[in-house]
């Protein structure tokens, strides 16, 4: 009963917000990759990087969520459907094991553009982790 409902969350900061996504969606975390800007793209598209011969679009999670651009960033490479993307996030935190039954829906006052990017909130003893909805984020 307990085993299938456990979820491993990789957590990281976007600005002040502690965010989490299912660790199975993350392929790898890169530190210093050189990003080539693509002029004329959406403002939250930071550019493209070369990941071992594949061209990946990198988006700034701060700008994507409508916050400030992230600082001292690293790239989370996430796989979604058959495309891989880089997400630029702030500091990386630990992996948190969450019971999927204890994930609460996002607070109703978190609505608008920002709200639709979150699919839930998980509360640990000390912190509150906002679960990102990859599907909405990666939608064009």
């Amino acid at each position: 009963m307990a085993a299938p409902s456990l979820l491993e969350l990789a957590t990281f900061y976007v600005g002040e917000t502690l965010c989490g996504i299912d660790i199975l969606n993350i392929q790898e975390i890169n530190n210093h990759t050189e990003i080539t800007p693509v002029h004329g793209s959406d403002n939250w598209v930071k550019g493209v990087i070369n990941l071992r011969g594949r061209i990946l679009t990198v988006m700034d999670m701060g700008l994507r969520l409508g916050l400030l651009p992230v600082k001292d960033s690293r790239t989370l490479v996430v796989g979604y459907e058959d495309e891989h993307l880089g997400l630029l996030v702030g500091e990386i935190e630990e992996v948190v094991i969450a019971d999927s039954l204890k994930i609460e829906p996002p607070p109703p006052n978190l609505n608008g553009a920002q709200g639709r990017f979150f699919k839930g909130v998980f509360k640990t003893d000390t912190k509150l982790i906002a679960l990102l909805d990859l599907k909405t984020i990666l939608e064009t």
Partner: protein
Amino acid sequence: MSEDQARQAGSLRVNVHLLDSLMTLAGELVLSRNQLTQGISTSNARTVEVAGQRIDLITSELQEAIMRTRMQPLANVFDKFGRIVRDLSLSQDKKAELSIHGNEVELDKTIIEAIQEPLTHLLRNCVDHGIEKPEIRLQKNKPDAGAIKLKAFHEAGQVNIEIEDDGKGMDPEAIAASALGKGMVSETELLTMGTREKINLIFLPGFSTAQQVTDVSGQGAGMDVVKANLDRLGGITDIESVIDKGTRIRIKLPLTLAIIPSQIISLGRERYAIPQVNLDELIRIPAAQVKERIERVGNAPVLRLRGVLLPILNLAEILGILRTYKDPATGEEKPERRINIADRRSPDLSSRAEENTKTDTSEKLQPRKNKDRRYRAESAIHIAVVSTGTFRYGLLVDGFMDSEEIVVKPLGRHLTGCKGYAGATIMGDGRVALILDVASLAAMASLSAADTSASHLHQAHGDKIKSLKDDKTALLLFRNGEQGQCAVPLDLVERIERIRAADIEYAGGRRVLQYRGGSLPLHELGECTSLGPISVNEEVDVIVFRIDGREMGLMVNGPVDAVEVTIEMDQRTLKQPGIMGSMIVNSRTTLMVDIFTLVRTLLGSAVDA
């Protein structure tokens, strides 16, 4: 049908031997990697070196083997044509026989898929418009069944496909007349056109849309679309036709689309690639000449290039990049404040005004110095002249870098909305460079297609006529060894390359250079003229000519320079095979090289052998 095509695109039939060799290579690669990591951990320079060499070898072999898996025989497309021709000729009460040669010629699978439609169209045209009815054929003393030949063969690193029929052919005069009627060409332009150029007019966009044209010319329908499709593949289309003898369409295609030769340019801190197919020439205008050569018509900057007005697009502006420039004095990067290309840079006026108010000297806002400040090499401007089927314009960039073979990679889903890019590629240092899409850049700058192409055509021909009158010709000057100066007409030159002497290979008793995926034969003037050998240093300049679709490299000594002069040739004193005559350029006797004879003697023998 479309589902069927999708499945075809998704799977590939590969020879088992090829797969086996791929496996072996992969195994070798792993072994070499182990060797390399071992060498690194024990800091054994010798092991690392050996492993590095092995990896180098394996990588090239692997690359070649993988490319081979993508190669498919043309039979995949050709085999369907027999039926198409049979069905169509039956339905039109005509008799046509299709003979196919070169079924086994292999091309990259993306190209194979993309040429199916244009080739089908061309074959249908052959039956539809080319081949006459049997009774008419008999009247013309031709066998009642028309013969259509479809031929594919390799030549000079490219694949040639020829479609030939023995039908009624096309009337160049009728084509010319209807093109004139539609206002696509002017009478003066027609005067300078040969039969072949007139027939090739049917490729002009919009030519074939009018019904009457197809009736007159016979084979017009959709030719512009066919050509556009083949152009997109980097193919070259040419058409020859003789009335009552038949028509031959020749298509040249690259072996693969995945790797394309490109020119790398720089803009700001980024690098971009422009496919060579789209590139006509690169122009660097020295700082001192910027003012005279860049003119403005209304708001639009134009460049006068050998008598043709060329619209200039500012790449940074189109892409919306904040332009920066390097301050020649301090070397720091500053945002560009010039609005016009030909404007001069002046020290920051606002900061100087502040200074002035502080010191409150009598000379507020000093008058501009009379001396033109644009003398530094860094202030030169760089323009890449690019063209697609319909556009031709100059692209203003910051600098030119190498010409490289690049591997095209697609951009992600989130960037499909960004126009102006055709994809991305990875440079030698691992960074990404974007590939520019010349056609959509023009669209972004709302360059009107018809205007530029028509005016270009018009001006180009006007220029030709003018140059016939006063004989002012652009020449490329170079030296052959220590002996005097030589010249060739600039418009015959495809490219100038500086190569390392060590890169020259000897094959079949001749010198060749690996050049854009093929072999470029290298020759020097001494081989067919009485001129001495060139002096070979570590680096040699090679002038690449393309004559009748064949390329040849002429090794020369620098400096190579372009001049525009009035030719007054002395065709007697120094004339000899390969040398047309002599003249005085820059107060030196200059030998005018006869490139056509040169190509004929040097490459002609190569073909016979």
